[in-house]
């Protein structure tokens, strides 16, 4: 009996069955991708807007600073000229402008509103430095102190760098748990397990085929996620050891399949298996950090989050895909996930039943 032949043909049968299941395709592939597009779109372009300054008449100090600043000021401040002083102040009161500036003689008058403390602080600081540097150059002496600026690599996590691995983690978890539990329950209630038991094909072959199909689906999910997130509109940048996410994905899928097998071995009907799957996957996705970063979460929540295998997958993928850590950084998480897979599979094997009776 050709074991490999059986393996190939069973895998093919299951893959075809999956591919023709529109609902499964939607929920495992398209649905998480929609979330990525949505979250990437909403949170991807969150930049602080410029300070909006209205210049009444001509303020020579301000004009000189803007002209001489080499465009630096233009990055943080937008200056609009207006002859209407009363109109400008009204705009400021309504919050449509952040400051109104006018020059009378040698005095620069800055009107501001206290509604937005950060912006009003920014605008006063800016104006102050403009006046100071005008004073300094008026003395004709070179400045006593000088400043040089150096930019460091931006260590804060861009939204897409976070959402790509963590939403992918959620997608993998729900596909894995759901796939395994549904397959097991369906096969048992429909008598396919019986039928397989009666064929000479070795049983590990049958289960290996199911695992292989799940891994293939997971790698497709991974590829789609990474490709979509790298589109210019989302702008995911993969650095260094991103490829380490692939063994992470595999370990994660094994862990989730094993949890799904556990549910499938325990549940008697498809409905029970479905409800149980939701009960496991949804809290795990929320508390495991798939929908929001846990870095800012309270300490107890972060502690609780480590109960969930998904937390390790999310963290591991985030480290290598989002934070650009080295390949070795993923090993502890891979270890935890493999441990979950082994323990889950062992319990599932004890609960396993061939038939529905």
């Amino acid at each position, binding site marked *: *009996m*050709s074991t490999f*032949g*059986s393996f*190939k*043909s*069973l895998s*093919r*049968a*299951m893959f*075809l*069955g999956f591919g*023709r*299941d529109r609902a499964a395709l939607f929920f495992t592939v398209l649905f998480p991708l929609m979330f990525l597009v949505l979250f990437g779109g909403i949170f991807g372009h969150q930049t602080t807007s410029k300070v909006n300054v209205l210049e009444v008449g001509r303020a020579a100090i301000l004009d000189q600073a803007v002209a001489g600043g080499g465009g630096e000021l233009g990055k943080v401040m937008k200056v609009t000229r207006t002859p209407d002083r009363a109109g400008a102040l009204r705009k400021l009161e309504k919050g449509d402008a952040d400051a109104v500036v006018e020059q009378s003689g040698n005095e620069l008058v800055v009107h501001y509103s206290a509604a937005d403390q950060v912006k009003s602080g920014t605008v006063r600081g800016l104006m102050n430095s403009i006046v100071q540097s005008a004073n300094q150059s008026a003395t004709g002496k070179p400045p006593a102190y000088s400043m040089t600026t150096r930019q460091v690599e931006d260590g804060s996590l861009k939204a897409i760098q976070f959402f790509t691995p963590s939403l992918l983690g959620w997608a993998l978890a729900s596909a894995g748990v759901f796939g395994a539990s549904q397959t097991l329950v*369906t096969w048992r209630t*429909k*008598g*396919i397990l*019986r*039928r*397989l*038991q*009666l*064929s*000479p*094909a*070795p049983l590990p072959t049958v289960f290996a085929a199911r695992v292989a199909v799940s891994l293939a689906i997971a790698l497709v999910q991974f590829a789609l996620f990474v490709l979509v997130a790298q589109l210019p509109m989302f702008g995911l940048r993969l650095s260094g050891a991103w490829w380490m996410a692939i063994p992470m994905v595999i370990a994660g899928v094994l862990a989730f399949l094993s949890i799904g097998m556990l549910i499938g071995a325990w549940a008697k009907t498809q409905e029970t298996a479905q409800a149980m799957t939701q009960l496991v996957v949804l809290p795990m996705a929320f508390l495991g950090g798939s929908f929001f970063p846990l870095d800012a979460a309270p300490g107890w929540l972060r502690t609780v989050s480590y109960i969930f295998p998904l937390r390790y997958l999310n963290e591991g993928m985030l480290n290598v895909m989002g934070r650009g850590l080295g390949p070795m950084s993923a090993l502890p998480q891979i270890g935890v996930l493999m441990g979950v897979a082994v323990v889950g599979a062992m319990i599932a094997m004890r609960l396993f039943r*061939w*038939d529905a009776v």
Partner: protein
Amino acid sequence: MVQTIEVSGLRKRYGDVQAVDGVTFGVEEGEFFGILGPNGAGKTTTLEIIEGLRKADEGEVSVLGLSPWPRNPGLLPRIGVQLQASSFFERLTTREQLRTFGSLYGVPVKKADAMMELVGLEGKADVRVEKLSGGQAQRLSIACALVHDPELLFLDEPTAALDPQGRRNLWDVLRQINTQGRTVVLTTHHMDEAEILCDRVAIMDAGKILRLGPPAVLVRGLDVPARISVASGVLAVADARLLPGADEAADDGISLTITTRDPSAVVAAMAAKDALTGVQIHGATLEDVFLELTGREYRA
């Protein structure tokens, strides 16, 4: 002569229920063997033990000279099992289904495809199993059980839920399979089916075999009177009672029915009176044997 199946002293208990309680029988090579019995009689459990799906608590089972338990990969390719539920892979077509099951036994694609012809499903090759009618699905499940050309075929209530045309069509398929030299073991609770198809039947109830033999022998062994009926009014009821061999006569306004243990004498006498308009003779059937043995009361 080595028997294809030998079972002796088989016992199996589930909790408080003694599902199989000392079953002994043999099935010969090439035989069409039926196991009859009401629901819960222990037919399916008996079959499952023979197929190697369950372990017997007690007793000996030998199938094609081998022991089916524990799971015997040397025996499995030689037997084919059609299960009660139609167990198919989801969303696959008829052809894909057969090829997948075939591959579990190392059957080449061409041979798997040829099975569609045997059960008359050539036209449904690209139809998904969910779209097949009850009869087509049943034929496909038989084709799946036969795809590896087994010597011994087990069928568990193959015609349940089929219409009369579907049943007759399936009987033809089953007879053809049997005449190819395969041994077939069938469970059913359709008595007419067993009478038409089986060489021998075992009637089971409460985990025991009550009778075993060819259907005709079982029927003849049953002392049930024959009923002769003719059109109403052909003969007066009083005259009918006086016919030689007649036990009882009644006229319900549609038919005159005469009960007798000597139908040939009664028919001869009626012929002499030219009173055979619309004559029908009902002998005992396997159903009578079955009801006689298992009782007529309804068990919910």
